[in-house]
């Protein structure tokens, strides 16, 4: 609410511009004769207040009465104060009425606002008490039985935010850990590249590596079908094959676009061993060779070479199996124990 003095001074400026234009005579003689009977400023404000009051513009009237009451004759002052009191009483009564109407309609927030206004403008203890009681009544009515319980759960939104942040941190940590494990898996893996020279036999050789390894593991490794107490568990740590378990889809990190997570990993780390080779086919059989390359940091060196001739036909794939065992064992011999653990 604006201070009455401020309102009044604003009005005064407006009235000085408008009212005198209506009241002032058209020549200077008339001006001189009127100067003696000119009303005081407080009187003018008083009159303006009366006009506003008649028009129902009570706020404006109140402001004018306040100005008149502060600067004027005793008579004007007493009249202005009387009018002010009447106005405030009227305002209080009206606010109480409105508040009670809202209360009866159970519109608690509006009712409370008008009771507050009534309390502020109350001119006597009875009205103020009525307004205050109204406020208290409204607050009691608007309070739900669940509100005390709700007060006890006010911490929950913050706790929820905290948990969300914690969850996000855990997810991030897991992602980093997963990435690290993937790096390790690749760094310990063996990549079998397609053998050159005979596409069909190359596919057979590529698939034979994991199958021979699985066969050896199932018989003499940790996963023997029968595990009797006298059974020896001979773990030949043939290096794991490339897992290829990471998504190939492109990923975006901010403005950086990476073709795929797998390619990112390949940038960071290479398989420990890479087997590449070739096939030279003749009528009697196929000469097959394999180069086993060892990657260590930024260095790559030839670890071992294995060769064989696979006859045509190769019953039960025995010759191919021997070749793969040869590759595995030669690699095993060349690598240190600590590298295979």
């Amino acid at each position, binding site marked *: 609410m604006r201070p009455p003095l401020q309102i009044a001074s604003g009005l005064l400026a407006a009235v000085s511009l408008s009212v005198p234009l209506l009241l002032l005579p058209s020549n200077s003689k008339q001006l001189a004769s009127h100067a003696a009977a000119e009303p005081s400023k407080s009187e003018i404000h008083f009159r303006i207040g009366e006009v506003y009051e008649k028009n129902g513009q009570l706020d404006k009237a109140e402001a004018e009465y306040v100005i008149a009451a502060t600067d004027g004759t005793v008579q004007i002052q007493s009249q202005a104060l009387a009018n002010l009191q009447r106005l405030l009483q009227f305002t209080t009564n009206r606010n109480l009425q409105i508040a009670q109407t809202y209360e009866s309609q159970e519109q608690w927030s509006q009712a409370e606002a008008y009771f507050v206004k009534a309390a502020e403008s109350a001119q006597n203890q009875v009205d103020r008490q009525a307004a205050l009681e109204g406020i208290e009544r409204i607050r009691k009515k608007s309070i739900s039985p669940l509100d005390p319980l709700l007060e006890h759960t006010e911490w929950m939104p913050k706790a929820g935010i905290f948990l969300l942040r914690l969850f996000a941190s855990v997810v991030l940590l897991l992602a980093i850990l997963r990435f690290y494990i993937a790096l390790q898996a690749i760094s310990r893996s063996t990549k079998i590249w397609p053998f050159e020279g005979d596409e069909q036999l190359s596919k057979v050789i590529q698939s034979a590596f994991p199958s021979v390894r699985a*066969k*050896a593991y*199932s*018989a*003499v490794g940790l996963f*023997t*079908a*029968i*595990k*009797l*107490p*006298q*059974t*020896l*568990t*001979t*773990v*030949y*740590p043939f290096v794991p094959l490339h897992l290829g378990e990471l998504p190939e889809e492109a990923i975006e990190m901010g403005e950086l676009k990476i073709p795929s997570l797998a390619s990112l990993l390949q940038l960071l780390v290479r398989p420990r061993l890479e087997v590449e080779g070739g096939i030279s086919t003749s009528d009697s059989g196929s000469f097959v060779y394999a180069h086993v390359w060892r990657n260590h940091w930024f260095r790559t060196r030839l670890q071992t070479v294995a060769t064989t001739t696979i006859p045509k036909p190769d019953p039960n794939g*025995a010759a191919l*199996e*021997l*070749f793969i*065992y*040869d590759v595995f*064992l030669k690699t*095993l*011999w060349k690598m240190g*124990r600590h590298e*295979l653990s």
Partner: protein
Amino acid sequence: MNSLDYVPKNPRAFQGYVEGVRKLNDYLESNVGVQLAEADRYLSQAIDSDPDFLPAQYYKSIVLTHERKSDDAIQLLEELLNKKPTFQTEVLYNLAFAYAKKYQYEPLTKAIELAAKALDEAKADERTELILLLSAIRAWMFAVFAGRPYGHPENFDQRKREYLPRAVEIADSVLKDRRLPELPADTRAAITVEAHNAAGIAFMRIGQFSSVFRNEKNSAWQLALQHYLAALSVHPHDVRVLDNISSLRLLQASKAAREGHTENIQKFASQARDRALEAISFNPGDQFRHYRRAQAEYLLGNLNGVHEAAQKALDQPGEVGEQKIRSLLNAQSTKDLAVVLDQNLTD
């Protein structure tokens, strides 16, 4: 066992080793004799390709024992032991088993001694599975050692009194051991079968020598059968257990013959023959089960069956002894029951 201590020198050795162990595992699961022969062939290939590849020698010795070629197995295991492998406890276990499978007095004594040594090593290494298996195998050795005179009648009674109750006690303690259920299924099964088999043999002998064990006279054979059947419920193809049931039924048939219970002779002899045939269907490569069948056929009066089974027994390796088999092979009739009854004496 650390694999890197024993990497074969060439791929052929490794291929033979992998295939041999696979076939041996198949045999241990099914007891089908053909798989044992294949395991032997592959492991021989491995040893020929790399004579220093010790794991192949170890598995070959297990195969030889199961093939009833105990002397060959013992020789291989003794050589292996001298090379001080990292898997010495396992070698000792198999060496003890191979000695015991000779079914002779001194080898059995040696087997008991070796099993005790292996047990001490297993305890020192806290190898629960080997501790329980060695305990069960010791129970089996005690039952076998006390089951026959083995050319030493002077201490036979003493052996019966000492070792048969101990065999039952040890087998029982293994079966009740709280660590047993915690072992992997296959390991648990192997130990359970061995313990039940040992208890079965011990009770079978207690029933046979009822003059020494008067209190158990009426219950022993029933308990023996229960233990054998419990072993079969775990491993239905176990030819050793099937052989032992055949032996029990023959003892019962022989006792019925001595007591003149004709119906029971037929009943028990039929059961003895059926169990022997069942074992032969899984693995015919053991003269003992053919010999048992021949004895059962004799009691049933089937002379052709006697000759057929005795001939097959002669063709197979084993420790029965040629003389016993020939007595059946040369039989002209089945009237003289003493040929069988004298080999299945009961008190």
